[in-house]
């Protein structure tokens, strides 16, 4: 969608044909607006959509976060009351804890497994396209179906996971029914859908010129040294991208735990994630103002983390040709 504007501009930008005199003088007369009119016109469905369905709700939610808006009633202006209440809301902090817990484990694990998987899928073996497809397939499964599937896999009585564990003599936990294991279970299922990131890593791997490896071979470097000094450093731009997207995704975790627990965050709120609680407040408890405040707090958190990653990126992201 975002490609629309530059595309439209290109179509309309002065053509490099010098003999098209009339066109150029016409452009001059029309000025800047005439030059962009068609482009904007073409982009207008998108621009209008963005303004009406994103920008306006987005910015009005700033205002709503200072009111007791309930969707059905406009509410009153209550200043910082919503934000103050949030600070004293135990379930809010619990949901923050759950979300941070998930992000802290899921994001690094996602990178480690993703890179490792991509490197394996980058080997020159026959039938690689099939393997790549297999690892990509889970990402095509809708989250709701994924949740139902994993509920069966992790079923403490008849589930495949506990079945395998019991053959090697381990009495598996009740996974989603246990406060200690519910979040690790969720991380496990999320890692299953890592295919999207793997594809990006694969592209990054394909971008590393063979020359470096050839040179390293001449110098007598082993596989480990090549990975550590060539592959990983040159993959950092892609890792950087996936890190930022991973953090954003982890903080917005919703569909999976919501479906798994029918929106209840059971057991004992150990799967109540930030956005789930936000949703409950907005659509179940008639507290859209409060939910808006939560959304903005989340925005600030994600923004701060992203900024932090961007600032540190200068130290660890290596772009080729620099």
């Amino acid at each position: 969608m975002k490609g629309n504007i530059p595309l439209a501009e290109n179509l309309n930008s002065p053509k490099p044909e010098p003999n098209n005199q009339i066109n150029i003088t016409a452009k001059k007369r029309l000025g800047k607006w005439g030059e962009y009119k068609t482009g904007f016109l073409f982009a207008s469905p998108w621009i209008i959509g963005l303004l009406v369905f994103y920008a306006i709700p987005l910015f009005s939610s700033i205002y709503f976060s200072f009111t007791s808006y309930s969707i059905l009633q406009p509410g009153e202006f209550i200043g910082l009351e919503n934000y103050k209440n949030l600070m004293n809301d135990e379930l809010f902090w619990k949901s923050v804890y759950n979300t941070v817990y998930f992000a802290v484990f899921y994001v690094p694990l996602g990178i480690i497994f993703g890179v490792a998987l991509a490197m394996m899928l980058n080997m020159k073996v026959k039938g690689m396209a099939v393997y790549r497809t297999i690892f990509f397939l889970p990402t095509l499964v809708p989250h709701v179906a994924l949740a139902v599937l994993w509920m069966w896999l992790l079923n403490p009585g008849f589930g495949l996971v506990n079945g395998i564990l019991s053959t090697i003599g381990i009495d598996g936990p009740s996974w989603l029914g246990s406060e200690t294991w519910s979040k690790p279970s969720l991380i496990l299922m999320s890692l299953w859908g890592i295919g999207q990131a793997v594809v990006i890593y694969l592209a990054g791997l394909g971008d590393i010129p063979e020359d470096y490896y050839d040179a390293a071979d001449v110098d007598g470097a082993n596989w480990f040294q090549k990975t550590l000094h060539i592959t990983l450093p040159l993959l950092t731009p892609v890792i950087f991208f996936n890190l930022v997207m991973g953090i954003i995704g982890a903080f917005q975790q919703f569909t999976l735990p919501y479906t798994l627990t029918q929106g209840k965050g059971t057991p004992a709120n150990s799967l109540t994630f930030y956005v789930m609680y936000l949703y409950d407040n907005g659509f179940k408890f008639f507290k859209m103002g409060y939910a808006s405040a939560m959304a903005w707090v989340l925005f600030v958190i994600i923004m701060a983390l992203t900024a932090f990653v961007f600032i540190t990126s200068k130290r660890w992201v290596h772009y080729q040709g620099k």
Partner: protein
Amino acid sequence: MKQKKKRIGAIALMIVLTLSMILTGCSSKSSSSEKGSKNQTTVTFWHPMTDVTGEAVDAVIKEFEKQNPDIKINAVYTANQGEGQNEKLMTAISGGNPPDVAYFDRFEIGSWAAQGSLEDLTQLAESSGVTKESYYPFAWDEASYQGKLYGIPTTTDSRLVYFNIDHFKEVGLDPENPPKTIAELEAAAEKLTKKKGKRFERIGFIPWFGQGWFYGWGWSFGGEFYNPETNKATANDPKLVEALQWMTDFAKKYNVEDIAGFTDSQGQGAMDPFLTGQLSMKVSGPWEVSAIKKFKPDLKYGVFPIPTPTGEDQTTWSGGWSVVIPKGAENKEAAWKFLKFFGGEEGQKIFSGISRDFSVLDSVNEELGYKEDPILKEFVNILPVSHHRPVMTQGSLYWNELASAVENATRGNGTPEELLTKVNEKVNKELSK
């Protein structure tokens, strides 16, 4: 010149396309009201019913349309319309384009009425002679908020403990004389439970399983959840603390994580642990009877009221559905006619007869033979003393908070008293707003 023409053509095409998209987006309203030719009024009705209840509601609509040829009911199935899942209805009302009638969980009438999103039916009911007398009092009260009527009740239920007669005989319990007190219930549960290591081969009873919500236990222990005079929640009522303490002790005794392992392994329908014989007693509603008939007709079972500490004053609680007119509905008058029919004797007879859900009219329950069925009569007979969840602006919040208080208490995250006090503070803070 040619180029210019082309451009104009392209722009015209674009405008036409955009407009047609916008128009189709808004057209749902116009097409529905146009459909009814011959001066017919179309009443849009949103409901979440499928299967047997779906058939039942279709039958009600058919009979209504036969009696009122000038009204056409446009029934629209709306998935997930129910307790805490009314997002679609909510946005439709706030967007000013609601259905004329919605099937609505009575439990939420209080909070929705407080938000001003339901039509006040008091006047309509008075002028057409619909009164509280014919309904069960709890059903009428639950459909009213601050003395005004906002919905017409349609169905109800109640909760009792189901027990497996064969299991009772096997361990030497008398099925003719099921537990009456909490102590007896506990003793029976212990006898019936077979546990090997962390795994239950059979479990006697799980207080919070099925319909074992805290509301039921709280009332059975003699507690009160809400004071309508002061509009204050009373979750820290000592009796309620006692009830939660009992549940917590139960959880400790059998190890709550092992119970969770058991309950999480269970399926629904034919795989329900009570039907598969893995659970000997279970709190549930009258719908369980049809499930047993369908999946395990040879199961020998009985029911008894939820035990109380003293063995007396047994009670239960009832929920159920209603039909409401959302604020801003177009065809209020026709909608009211449908409401009146659905909640009236005729509609109730058709609906309850097919769906086998209890009617909110005692006379209909009697006529349909619910009072003669050995199991169902127990459910009907307890209705006069049944409770309903408090009609308040924060019904959903209170429900969720109580459910998580039970979860946290049984899992040892805080004492019952602490947790219930917190619930009380949170809910009262919202109520006072």
